[in-house]
């Protein structure tokens, strides 16, 4: 990687201000559901729409954090992180489907509607256990982690880096998408999972459930932020940056690069999986479209826009790009792709350090 890729965490200067801004933002977010409970005519009332959409953005932000950890710090540009996100989503989706139970259209006690429909007699083995929430959450973390472990091990061991890794991970998520589109896979094919009823006894699509999920996402965001920053501030973080900038030199210092990369890649995949697990109950649907390579690239672009190599940048990017997208798809339904595409081009060209580069002063 050329030095130009190195966008370091903003040094002593600006860190304090950044932290203040961050805390302010978190507090603001934390207030949203409360404001939503205010009577609709009150001046401070926020609509459910804002709450649910912000909850969604938070999960995106977590995904962005995960990508930034791998890309911004360790220089692993995965174009397949959407796959880990989606797998986490599918895990929780399977749980939600199991919870529907006999309330499905065909009233089958166990089988989800689509299975009844495709003539399944009993539950496929890989669906067992998903009726337990803890198991589902475990899978939401473990499955992405395992997949990342296998792919990462094979790739890093044979020193596949940079563009090659990107292309392989992209092919990975593409292959998964094709596979999940097949109805015979037992994951509901193109329609995926929808019409969820409840989670942990809370009926979904109620303000209570929404704010609960919202806070859960916010907590996960903070946890992920804490985890990532404690990594990046540790010696491991410096090793990762070292790997990003001069991989072979790190080897000559006696560090097993494969191990370090694998560690961060798997961890990042797990975080992405959890994010997906919180995303699905909030948007109420998971289907193979989530695996589409475009989604993964977009997520990477959030990070690039915000400013990679800085955790705050990842968050900034995720929120700003998605807010822009939501706004434009309504205001300029025919033109928003121009705007968004233009933004991506402009940022990569003129803001190599992303939006965050505008705030923290560039180290020479």
């Amino acid at each position: 990687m050329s030095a130009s890729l190195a966008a370091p965490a903003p040094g002593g200067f600006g860190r304090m201000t950044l932290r203040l801004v961050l805390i302010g933002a978190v507090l603001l977010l934390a207030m949203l559901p409360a404001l939503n409970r205010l009577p609709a005519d009150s001046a401070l009332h926020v609509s459910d729409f804002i709450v649910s959409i912000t909850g969604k953005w938070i999960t995106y932000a977590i995904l962005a954090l995960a990508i930034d950890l791998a890309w911004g710090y360790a220089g692993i540009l995965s174009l397949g992180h959407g796959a880990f996100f989606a797998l986490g989503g599918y895990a929780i989706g399977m749980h939600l489907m199991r919870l529907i139970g006999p309330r499905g259209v065909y009233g089958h006690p166990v089988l989800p509607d689509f299975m009844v429909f495709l003539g399944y007699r009993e539950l496929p083995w890989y669906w067992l256990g998903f009726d337990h929430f803890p198991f589902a959450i475990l899978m939401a973390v473990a499955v992405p982690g395992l997949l990342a472990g296998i792919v990462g091990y094979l790739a890093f061991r044979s020193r596949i880096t940079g563009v090659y890794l990107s292309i392989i991970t992209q092919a990975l998520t593409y292959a998964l998408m094709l596979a999940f589109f097949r109805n015979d896979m037992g994951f509901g094919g193109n329609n995926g999972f929808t019409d969820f009823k409840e989670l942990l006894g809370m009926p979904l699509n109620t303000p209570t459930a929404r704010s609960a999920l919202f806070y859960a996402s916010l907590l996960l965001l903070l946890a992920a932020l804490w985890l990532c920053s404690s990594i990046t501030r540790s010696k491991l973080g410096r090793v990762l940056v070292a790997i990003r900038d001069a991989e072979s030199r790190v080897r000559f210092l006696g560090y097993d690069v494969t191990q370090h990369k694998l560690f961060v890649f798997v961890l990042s995949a797990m975080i992405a999986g959890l994010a997906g697990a919180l995303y699905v109950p909030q948007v109420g649907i998971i289907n193979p479209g989530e695996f589409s390579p475009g989604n993964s690239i977009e997520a990477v672009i959030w990070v690039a826009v915000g400013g990679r190599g800085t955790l705050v940048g990842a968050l900034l990017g995720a929120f700003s790009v998605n807010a822009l997208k939501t706004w434009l798809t309504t205001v300029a339904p025919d033109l928003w792709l121009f705007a968004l595409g233009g933004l991506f081009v402009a940022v990569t060209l003129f803001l190599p350090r992303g939006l965050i580069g505008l705030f923290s002063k560039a180290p020479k």
Partner: protein
Amino acid sequence: MTSTSPTLTRRAALGGFGAALAMPALRPAFGQGTPIKVGVLHSLSGTMAISETALRDTVLMMVDWVNAKGGVMGRKVEAVVVDPASNWPLFAEKARELLQVHKVDVTFGCWTSVSRKSVLPVFEELNGMLFYPVQYEGEEESKNIFYTGAAPNQQAIPAVEYLMSKDGGEAKRIALLGTDYVYPRTTNRILRGFLKSKGIGDADIMEEYTPFGHSDWQGIVARVKRFASEGKKTAIVSTINGDANVPFYRELGNQGIKAEDIPCVAFSVGEEELAGIDTKPLVGHLAAWNYFMSVQGAPNTEFKQLWQSYIKNPKRVTNDPMEATYTGFRMWTQAVERAKSTKVDDVRAAMIGQKLMAPCGYEEEMLPNHHLSKPVLIGEVQEDGQFNIVWKTPNAVKAENWSPFIPENANRRR
């Protein structure tokens, strides 16, 4: 050709959203005399834009039409257009935005089943009203959705009956080709059940599914040829979706499959799709719909003129989902007039039993199951990309959204 929604709408949308985001106090107060808002929830980008942009334009056309007539209940109708970009979760998000931020009174939208499934919970939670204009697999019934497209018994079964009739060529073997998603799966399941009841066994049924946008049909078409060469008259029933059709028909043509030998009846190929295909090799292949542009009669001429003058292109075709949108919109205006209100519950009550002389040349009625009674027409592809109607039901068929050929429907929850 993507026509733009009125700037007024733009500003409304902008204001609405900004308000919702930042200063809720500014949300426009809602009351009598203010415009009636119609949400348009069709993909304008991504894979589904190919089919859905035309429907967006149809709704905008109807808005102009009704405003030209002085609006509904004397109130102006205003469209709020959003782009869910062929992204299913985005459909849900946009549905919520339309209902909560823009407070639309009714929404016209969705094409794919998955997009409908994705927005359904939102419409039920917020008690909105959605008009869904595309033929679909049935197995669904929501009090918040009006289905103005065909249910399986209004398209698939009559089509196969025709294939097995003397005029249709007395097919004894059926190849069911489809894109691998719920509509083809269901339809084919229903057809299997139906064919069994007509004494055609599994040995004489071939079922193949391909991914979306499948572009290499060489192998499958060759297999169909082989399947057809086993001594019984064979026909293809295609539930292949949008994009994959062009390569499929090209392959049919190039492998010399003539309609006289192996007729292919399609449920998702209309005039819009044919516009993208060189139809000469396809003459004689069939499609089953509830409307064809070639239908004779005043209502259709009116519809076609309205469309071509709105889109400012005398060559633009009309198709079945557009007709369904048109019919749905007109029934909605009738219902609002009758209910003297735009409240979802009132309009819903008023919708049931609404009648309209539809462009398809039959009187359609909104049934209590929120589906329409529709005629079934079968058309043969002609060189000019239009359909020559070779068979039609004597009168409109009542929709069965719960097919009797799916055993599970027996013990479904009501």
